[in-house]
């Protein structure tokens, strides 16, 4: 008699690896083995649907059959590990990049990276923005050591193709915008976040993107300001704070604080 664990591993082998033998041997006598197909079909269609919801632009770009075929392979290689499917599919962009049948669509992996960032932003937990009074209460030398914790909806993305235009065009059915896309316009730098009315994707220039990325990585403020070294950082930092892009901060160890004066000027 198989143990519960043996039975469940046999069913997993049937559903994921399509090896029906062990599970079929455990079925009651008058139960045909093709009943396992019902469960496998639910598994594959359910998880494919989860991917389709997270990657709607990829789905539209490659259409139903191609998407289902790619999803089939992806699910076999990276089956979900938890019942929270909104967090499933992080590896799909990487998978698409190495997916030979899609090689002609060189931008597909980058569009998928944007969609994953959007998906994360949609589902990120609700967090209160940082109370600015906590920053103001710090001594200037401590302000220099501030390392921000970004809101979980925020992603900073650099892509080789104008994926924001492609993504909007595809989901909006804007064929004119898609026809006007020039894949050779160079990299784009994007900020993805969930605002009051939904997920927003904005383009930043290279300097502003690097500044935001350094802040979101949790580098000490003084170090980020010194690296940035351009004049508009004050207003950019003020905008990040006002937009509630940080939810908390910690203080870097004292040795890291070398640029007290510049941070004082900003805060």
């Amino acid at each position, binding site marked *: *008699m*198989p*143990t*519960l*664990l043996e*039975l*469940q*591993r046999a*069913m*997993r082998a049937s*559903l*994921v690896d399509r090896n029906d033998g062990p599970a079929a041997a*455990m*079925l*009651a006598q008058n*139960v045909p083995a093709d*009943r396992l197909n*019902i*469960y496998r*079909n*639910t598994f594959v*269609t*359910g998880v494919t649907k*989860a991917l*389709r*919801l997270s990657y*709607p632009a990829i*789905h*539209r770009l490659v*259409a*139903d059959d191609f*998407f289902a075929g790619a999803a089939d392979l992806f699910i076999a290689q990276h089956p*979900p*590990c*938890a*019942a*929270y*499917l*909104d967090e499933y599919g992080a590896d799909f962009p990487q998978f698409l990049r190495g997916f030979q049948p899609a090689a002609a669509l060189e931008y597909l992996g980058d569009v998928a990276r944007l969609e994953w960032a959007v998906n994360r*932003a*949609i*589902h*990120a*937990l*609700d*967090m209160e923005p940082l109370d600015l009074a906590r920053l103001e209460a710090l001594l200037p030398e401590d302000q220099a050591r501030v390392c921000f914790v970004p809101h979980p*909806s925020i992603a900073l993305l650099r892509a080789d193709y104008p994926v924001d235009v492609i*993504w*909007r065009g595809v*989901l*909006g*059915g804007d064929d004119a915008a898609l026809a006007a896309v020039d894949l050779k316009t160079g990299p784009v730098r994007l900020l993805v976040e*969930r*605002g009051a*009315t*939904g*997920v*927003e*994707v904005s*383009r930043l220039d290279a300097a502003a993107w690097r500044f935001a990325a350094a802040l979101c990585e949790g580098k000490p403020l003084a170090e980020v300001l010194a690296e940035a070294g351009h004049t508009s950082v004050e207003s950019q930092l003020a905008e990040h704070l006002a937009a509630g892009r940080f939810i908390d901060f910690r203080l870097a160890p004292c040795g890291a604080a070398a640029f007290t004066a510049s941070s004082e000027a900003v805060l």
Partner: protein
Amino acid sequence: MAARSFSPPPCGEGSGVGVVPQGTVVEQLTDPPPRPSPSRDRVCAGFGHSIERSKSATADFDRGKGERIPAKAGIGLRFQHHQVVLDVGPDVAWMEVHTENYMGGGTPLRYLDAIRRDYPISLHGVGLSLGSAEGLDAAHLERIRRVAGRVEPALMSEHIAWSIANGTYLADLLPLPMTEEALDAVCRHVDQVQNHMKRRILVENPSTYLRFRHSTIPEWEFMAAVAARTGCGILCDVNNIYVSAHNHGWDASTYLAALPPAAIGEIHLAGHSVRSLPGGGTLRIDDHGSHVIAEVWALYGQALARFGPVPTLIEWDTDVPPLDVLLGEADHAGALLASAEREARNADAA
């Protein structure tokens, strides 16, 4: 381009616009059809709907403190009905949602917060895998606790099934072997959940398409034993009983008669589909994609006669129809509940 219709995104303002499409997901199904749970509703990134209820605050529930689901008809709430529920405030006693659809932040939870002010909510989990030999996923249990902390549901329920093996989530409510070992595992996990949540939960009887050769316990006895050993309640899915009884040649009345009336905390009703088998005969598939059939309404009548009036939910998860269709089904259940109520009163008077 796929020939599917999405609502167009709003016009952009400045550099940032939310453009995740909204709309019912219509499954293109091939043989064999899928089953309804676990579902994943589409989340829309937001089109600037202000999430405010338009219904006046008539029901002022003491959230989570002694609030109960009334012994009336409720409906399963799906994302495509969030806005219309807020707009019209339908005349329905309560609503149930899939816990897994509210585990993130943002729009879904804000809708549920608003709807929650007017309707008692039941949280129905589809992914905890109470029957897993490898134990419960502690992170998932904690996600459920977090949702419950925010929603303060009047009821919480899960399934007599399993979904996780070897660390893989198999995205279905898979059948358990009806063995003492499985019964022990389920009871251990129900205890764990009830301790973690500090409340009683209900467990739902499954619909199944296969049985295992080493099963020794009739499913109805398994259900009753889980309730007796753990003190949990039973969510009696009448459609599931009908489907499984058909598929396995059981007697649905025997099943109902074996369930302890005092443990029944909720009833589920749904539609199912029928599939022809190659060798003749049919298999009933619990896809929650159509009206409740007459035979299931009749079995529901039997259930009410045995259990008395119990909170009853209309579930509809695939090809979700307009809200009015769900409300029509709920009205039908409500009428049967009302007559069960009268009979219960008459019996008491006599």
